């Protein structure tokens, strides 16, 4: 089911609009002209994820050296600081947090085990990691396709 959620000009680059669609709170983000929608509910414990701050990607080789990619595509939940990629809904976290989670998923679906196994190389730097030492987390925020139809943004909701 498609819903018109905003005029395209309403959300400037780097901005967002939080709307209610089909009874769900959704955040629509403009990343440099591309639009993405996430559910405004953190998969961790239900915080209002889409009200969080956006961050870029930072890394460094030595003290005083800052290699900053100002993508501002990392959304940080205001409740517990879990970080999510706005494009994919993928979470990022400290490996220690994941170790606990990995233990939990060992008894569940094969696909989740495979995903957890990807994170075995805990200290391998991933180019999308928002900060040094972070790995892919266990959560994926719910995302929805956004299309621009003329002057309007349209979100497609499942069901």
């Amino acid at each position, binding site marked *: 089911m498609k819903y018109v959620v905003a005029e395209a000009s309403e959300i400037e680059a780097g901005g967002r609009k939080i709307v209610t669609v089909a009874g769900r709170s959704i955040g629509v983000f403009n990343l440099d002209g591309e639009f993405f929608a996430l559910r405004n509910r953190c998969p961790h414990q239900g915080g209002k994820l889409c009200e969080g701050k956006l961050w870029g990607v930072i*890394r*460094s080789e*030595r003290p*005083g*050296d800052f290699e900053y990619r100002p993508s501002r595509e990392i959304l940080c939940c205001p409740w517990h600081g879990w970080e999510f990629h706005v494009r994919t809904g993928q979470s990022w976290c*400290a490996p*220690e947090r994941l170790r606990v989670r990995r233990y939990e998923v060992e008894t569940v679906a094969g696909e989740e085990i495979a995903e957890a196994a990807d994170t075995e190389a805990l200290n391998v730097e991933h180019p999308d990691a*928002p900060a*040094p030492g972070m790995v892919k987390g266990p959560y994926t925020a719910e995302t929805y396709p956004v299309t621009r139809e003329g002057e309007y943004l349209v979100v497609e909701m499942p069901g």
Partner: protein
Amino acid sequence: MIDADVHIPNPRLRELLPFLSEHWIEHFSNTLDKGASQQYYPPRSPVTGRGGGLGDLREAVFDRGGAEVAVASCLYAVDSIHNPDAAIALATATNDWQSREWLEREPRLRGSVVVPIQLPAAASEEVERHADRPGFVQVLIPVRTEHPLGSRHYHPLWKTIEQSGLVAAIHFGGAPVMPPTPTGWPSFFLEEYTAMAQVFATQLTSMIVEGVFDACPDLRVVFLESGFTWIPAHLWRMDKEWRNLRRLVPWVRRPPSDYFREHVRVGIQPLDAPPVPAQLLEVVEQLGSDDLLLFASDYPHVHACDAGERLLPLLPATLQRKIRDENARSLYRLPEGGVP
């Protein structure tokens, strides 16, 4: 067995005169300046013990103590001297004296380069002057300093120490212009001695967070007379804070506890023992690595709670062997099977 912490007594001024230039001999002879007089402990207290000469040390540390090699430091407080040129001259003289009177005469003894830490550039030059001299294996840095040891102020010195191949030995004490607690001047020795663990903790945090080990990935550090029972809880807290604040210090690419376990070793004397001795085992396990602790006697200083007697018998034989021998052998790159 390797003894990682024994002491050469502070030199009397007259013992240093043969190693000073005529200008400094005249200065110390004709003025009231008699060099460093600072003692960390009150005179005649058991922990102040000066020990005797080389013969006494040989007898206590090697013959009775059974050490194959002992790493010695001289706590002559050049960091308390405000005249910068006098501090440099006395540091150099102390090192030449240590080399001539102790290290050259006893090949089982290894030494520590004394530096004027209040003058980091001069300290670097002093390290370079002695780095290749036989006998010196480390640089002695008092844990109390004018600035946190991770500050950029000291980075060139860390680089020099790293490149020299020497170990940086951070030792209880120091006499900078700063108070010995993080909140100001205490009134009693009891407060100062207890607070020294917090000073070590602060220096550890500073060195990791301010990127000393990222700038100097081969730097090896040993904490001497720091105690170690405070370390696990401190690492838990540092790791926790890093998770939230790492973006501000992105050069810290791994949990701080990883840096500690990779770069820092800790002498076991003196020991802060819990009332129930078995609880020490939990702390040792919480350290998270068998490679960290080094046997140390702190000769000639006498402590109420002796780590060799209280801690080692509780531990499994393999860990005892690491603490008595292998960990220090690896840190100081001592050859297997005896001194050449």
